[in-house]
């Protein structure tokens, strides 16, 4: 090997710590970009592939019972590709410990004759579905967390309180259903005879699953075709209860995952940017260490272009190592995370793939970014003259400017070593700026991500204001409030219970031609379990009769509505006039839109005064440990008294269910924030290393005049901590625009509207401690190295 290339190799391999830091620095960007790209590509490919292979319905029409003939009529409506009727029963899955879980049981002629929302084998490798005999049930695989094995007997409780035993025939994969973990409701499939045995209908259907022939992702088109089907069904004498169209043509989590990918994309390129800063810093550090060697090589005949070529090859070697490790690592990590997401979001994962477009991007980050980042410091150093290179290296070069007088004056009260640290901080301003840039950006991203968490929390708090109870009970039918309230209050620990009415309805357009689905929510007029966020007008008051408060979700489909307007709402086929008295806002996706009215008036209007569909219960203690036994006891009391309940849900369960989608995003961003923090820490470590290296002689002088190990270590540590604290202060400011960007982007991507800006103390305090820890760790090694130098070593240092 030609000697100069041997030198390049020994530079690369001989100093493993430096090579490790350098490779890690480049890897951060290469990995982040690769991970995000791979995750996005695989997720979109696999989620869509699995979803579309199920011939998914774009719309579901909830309808009064219809037979096969009506389904046939629906199938012939123009624009329809396929329609399938489904009938189902709502039961409670009774677990061995007595806990009940809501379960929807669909009736099928046979699992393998389904044409819409096709069921697939639990294991993608299997080519067959389990058969379904009488009194057998196929469970959706997302319910496998209950631990049932094929052949096990499960108990379900029917709406009337009767129980039935079913044999588990196996698991299937229904990619079109929302998984149990997120919906809190399990899904099962039985044959039609069994469905009838469970109280359902074997001849009539209550849902129409509609698959359109064209443009399945066009919400307007899907809506038109579905409306045409609904109209045709109504003409045939059926009643349409509700039409559900949510993200047609896409997996239910598609929007969330797109949000995740967008945010991760932004963060990964920020990491590349950050990594670029760090590369500059590390290269400057490396080149500083090599100044003398460059001088020697030039003195013995090395030309600038030869030296440049050597350092370019060295940089490319670092890049190659980062590339070789990061490409498979990013792909594997993406695959691993995707497997977890597939399990969480209920879709099958395709084969492991290395995507060429990802590899190309990673190659750019691994090779081009470091070269571009390193170009200026490399050129500056290899173009140094031999005299400059060989003169007086080892002593810190003198500053051209004196420290600012104010800084010096302010140091009067500090101890001498601390004063030295403070001066050292500002000695190399260019390097300080680079180090600060890395740390500041890392810190700002970290704080912004933490602020996003706070924003999610705030959003959840805003949502919770509409669901303030400790326990929510939903009944399968209307019950007398007095009856269920008395039962509820008999349970120790229950403080109060409010009875609410919830009814589906439609807001009819002014010309009476079209209608939009909505749900009327009617709390008692004196309810204190709702704290609405009003954007206009007022909330419903005691004594209000036909007053209605509409929300932002209704306004998104009916932007013409305003306070003072009169609207027509159709409830149970009857139309009534309502006066809009206020507009509220609730974050998140709400389908259908909710409008709030007085319980007293609505119950009169539908001739059911005193009837309630749900109870909102407040307990004496609000912590989960106290509430959980009360919820269990309530269930037992309702069962004992024949009350048919849809679910008994604690606030904590509701919250977990609500945050289940945003949690995915939160954890990913936390990982990215930690990566940025590590990158920032590496930058500081590099700076502190080179600072102490440059000051080796100074350290020797200080030791010679009596500085102890502790003094030397303190000087280095305090310098590192000071840089950390400066970066922390500035990152607070920089995090403000990044927080705005992030909350806006995530809000638009996931919630279809920007989220409110929240700047919490969590991020500030966490990053303060993070910075101190990173700074202490980053300075510890250089400080230890500095304190181990002997006077002889340091003064002989050349």
């Amino acid at each position, binding site marked *: 090997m*030609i*000697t*100069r290339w*041997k*030198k390049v190799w*020994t*530079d690369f391999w*001989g100093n493993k710590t430096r090579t490790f830091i350098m490779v890690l620095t480049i890897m951060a960007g290469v990995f982040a970009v690769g991970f995000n790209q791979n995750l996005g590509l695989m997720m979109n490919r696999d989620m869509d592939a699995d979803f579309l292979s199920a011939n998914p319905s774009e719309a579901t029409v909830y309808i009064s019972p219809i037979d096969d003939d009506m389904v046939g009529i629906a199938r012939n409506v123009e624009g329809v590709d396929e329609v399938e009727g489904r009938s189902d029963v709502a039961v409670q899955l009774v677990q061995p410990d007595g806990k009940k879980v809501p379960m929807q049981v669909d009736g099928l002629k046979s699992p393998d004759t389904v044409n819409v929302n096709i069921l697939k084998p639990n294991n993608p490798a299997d080519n067959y579905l389990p058969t379904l005999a009488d009194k057998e049930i196929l469970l959706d695989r997302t319910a496998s967390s209950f631990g049932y094995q094929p052949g096990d007997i499960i108990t379900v409780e029917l709406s009337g309180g009767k129980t039935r035993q079913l044999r588990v025939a196996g698991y299937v994969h229904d990619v079109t259903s929302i998984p149990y973990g997120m919906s809190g409701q399990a899904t099962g499939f039985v044959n039609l005879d069994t469905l009838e045995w469970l109280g359902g209908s074997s001849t009539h259907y209550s849902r129409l699953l509609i698959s359109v022939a064209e443009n399945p992702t066009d919400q307007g088109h899907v809506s038109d075709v579905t409306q045409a089907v609904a109209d045709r069904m109504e003409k045939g004498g059926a009643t349409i209860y509700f039409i559900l169209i949510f993200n047609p043509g896409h997996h239910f989590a598609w929007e969330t995952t797109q949000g995740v990918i967008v945010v991760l994309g932004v963060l990964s390129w920020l990491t590349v940017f950050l990594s670029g800063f760090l590369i500059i810093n590390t290269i400057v550090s490396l080149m500083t260490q090599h100044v*003398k*060697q460059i001088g*020697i*090589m*030039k*003195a*013995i*005949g*090395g*030309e*600038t*272009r*030869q030296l440049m070529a050597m350092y370019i090859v060295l940089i490319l070697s670092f890049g190659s190592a980062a590339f070789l490790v990061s490409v498979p690592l990013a792909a594997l990590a993406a695959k691993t995370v995707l497997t977890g997401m597939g399990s969480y979001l209920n879709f099958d994962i395709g084969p492991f793939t290395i995507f060429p477009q990802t590899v190309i991007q990673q190659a750019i980050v691994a090779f081009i970014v470091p070269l571009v980042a390193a170009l200026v410091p490399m050129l500056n150093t290899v*173009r140094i*003259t*031999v*005299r400059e290179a*060989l003169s007086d290296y080892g002593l810190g070069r*003198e500053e*051209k400017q004196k420290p600012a007088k104010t800084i010096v004056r302010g140091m009067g009260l500090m101890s001498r070593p601390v004063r030295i640290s403070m001066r050292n901080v500002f000695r190399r301003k260019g390097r300080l700026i680079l180090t600060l840039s890395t740390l500041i950006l890392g810190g700002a991203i970290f704080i912004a991500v933490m602020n996003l968490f706070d924003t999610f929390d705030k959003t959840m708090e805003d949502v919770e204001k509409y669901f303030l109870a400790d326990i929510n009970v939903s009944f399968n039918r209307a019950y007398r409030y007095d009856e269920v309230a008395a039962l509820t209050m008999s349970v120790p620990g229950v403080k109060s219970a409010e009875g609410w009415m919830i009814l589906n309805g439609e807001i009819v357009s002014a010309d009476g031609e079209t209608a939009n689905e909505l749900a009327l929510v009617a709390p008692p007029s004196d309810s204190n379990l709702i704290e609405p966020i009003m954007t206009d007008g007022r909330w419903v008051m005691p004594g209000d009769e036909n007053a209605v408060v509409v929300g932002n979700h209704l306004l998104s489909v009916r932007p013409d509505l305003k306070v003072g307007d009169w609207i027509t709402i159709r409830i149970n086929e009857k139309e009534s006039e309502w006066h809009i008295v206020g507009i509220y806002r609730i974050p998140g996706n709400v389908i259908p839109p909710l409008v709030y009215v007085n319980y007293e008036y609505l119950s009169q209007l539908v001739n059911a005064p005193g009837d309630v569909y749900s109870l909102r219960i407040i307990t004496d203690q609000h912590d989960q440990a106290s509430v959980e036994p009360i919820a269990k006891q309530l269930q037992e009391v309702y069962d004992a008294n024949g009350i048919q309940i849809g679910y008994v849900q604690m606030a904590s369960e509701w919250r977990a269910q609500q945050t289940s989608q945003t949690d995915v995003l939160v954890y990913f961003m936390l990982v990215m924030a930690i990566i940025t923090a590590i990158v920032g820490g590496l930058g500081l470590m590099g700076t502190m290393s080179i600072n102490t290296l440059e000051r080796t002689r100074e350290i020797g002088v200080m030791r010679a005049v009596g500085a102890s190990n502790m003094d030397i270590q303190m000087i280095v540590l305090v310098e590192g901590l000071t840089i950390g604290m400066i970066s922390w202060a500035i990152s607070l400011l920089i995090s403000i625009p990044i927080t705005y960007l992030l909350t806006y982007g995530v809000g638009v991507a996931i919630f279809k509207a920007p989220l409110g800006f929240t700047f919490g103390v969590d991020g500030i305090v966490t990053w303060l401690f993070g910075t101190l820890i990173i700074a202490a760790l980053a300075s510890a090694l250089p400080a230890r190295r500095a304190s181990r130098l002997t006077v002889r070593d340091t003064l002989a240092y*050349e």
Partner: protein
Amino acid sequence: MWTIPFTRNGKFKNSVDGPNGDHSLIELRNVVKNYKTAVGDFPALKGVDLDMKAGEFVSVIGKSGSGKTTLINMIAGIDRPTSGEVWVNGTAVHELNENQMARWRGRNLGIVFQFFQLLPMLSLVENIMLPMDFCKTFPHREREERALHLLDQMELADHAYKLPSAISGGQQQRVAIARALANDPPVILADEPTGNLDSKTADTVFELFGQLVSEGKTIIIVTHDSGLAKRAARTALIADGEIVNEFVARALPTLTHNQLLKATRQLETIKYDAGAMILHEGESRQNFHIVTKGTVEVFLQRENASDVVVAQLGPGKYFGEMEYFHDQENRASIRASETTPVEVVALDYDELHALLSESEATREALHEAAHKHEEENIQHRGEEK
């Protein structure tokens, strides 16, 4: 002891081989170097003129900060003059750009540093091969063989594949010399090559330099050790950024560097053709003379008008000291030798007086010389009678 057995071309371009050639291998013409500092320009070299011939062994001495390293850096192209010209082996070094400089330096100069400056990550043999790699002076396959041979000449072949950290300082310096010889350059520059070595090892290094000079290399070393400097054939003394006239330094060695510099500044150069009369006995004179080139003859007039040559004075010898201490009337006649032209430098007696009033040792030395020459003259005259 050491011989360098095979060379690339080994010939000088613009010089005659050997120390007695007429052409200079290295020429500095009015070289000025100013460094910018926080308190203004610092003049490191103030119009230095210096010639060195091929095959010379020259030591550059001076106190710390006198400008000796700057001077050698000018020759090596490590630093550039603020003004003036530097010619080495026919190349205008001051006109080369950084890249041309590196290439030229690699092929024409070998540099030895005080702190050896071996690359710590390369073995000894690789350190020696590196200049050959950069300059592509020898075929690839020959480089290791040559490097090993050079190491063998330095008696370090057994350590060839060790790292520099595994050998002693003296051994490292020998490797550095081997590296300097790698491309077979005509000139070796050494900046304090023994500054970091014990006296025994320093002797060995100087022995090695002497050997290289005998093989035709031109060696310039910077040292502050005047004892070692004397082992070079020629010494250039630098003080306060100026070259002290080396003949003055040789003639009046007990003056301090600054006094020598002061004297140098006062000198007047006078040239004489071969055989030309310089001074007549009995005439009054005002100058102290030091021969810088050629030979002068000191002779006494016989009664029969013929003369007898009582002394021949070459470069570094002086005359006029007897007259200074006596009546300033010439005690003998002096002429240029018949064979070569003569160049002398003249120092006014007033200036000499001022110098001697500052240096009692020099006064005593001159006085003693004057006394001795007076006695020799008397003796010669007695013999003539």
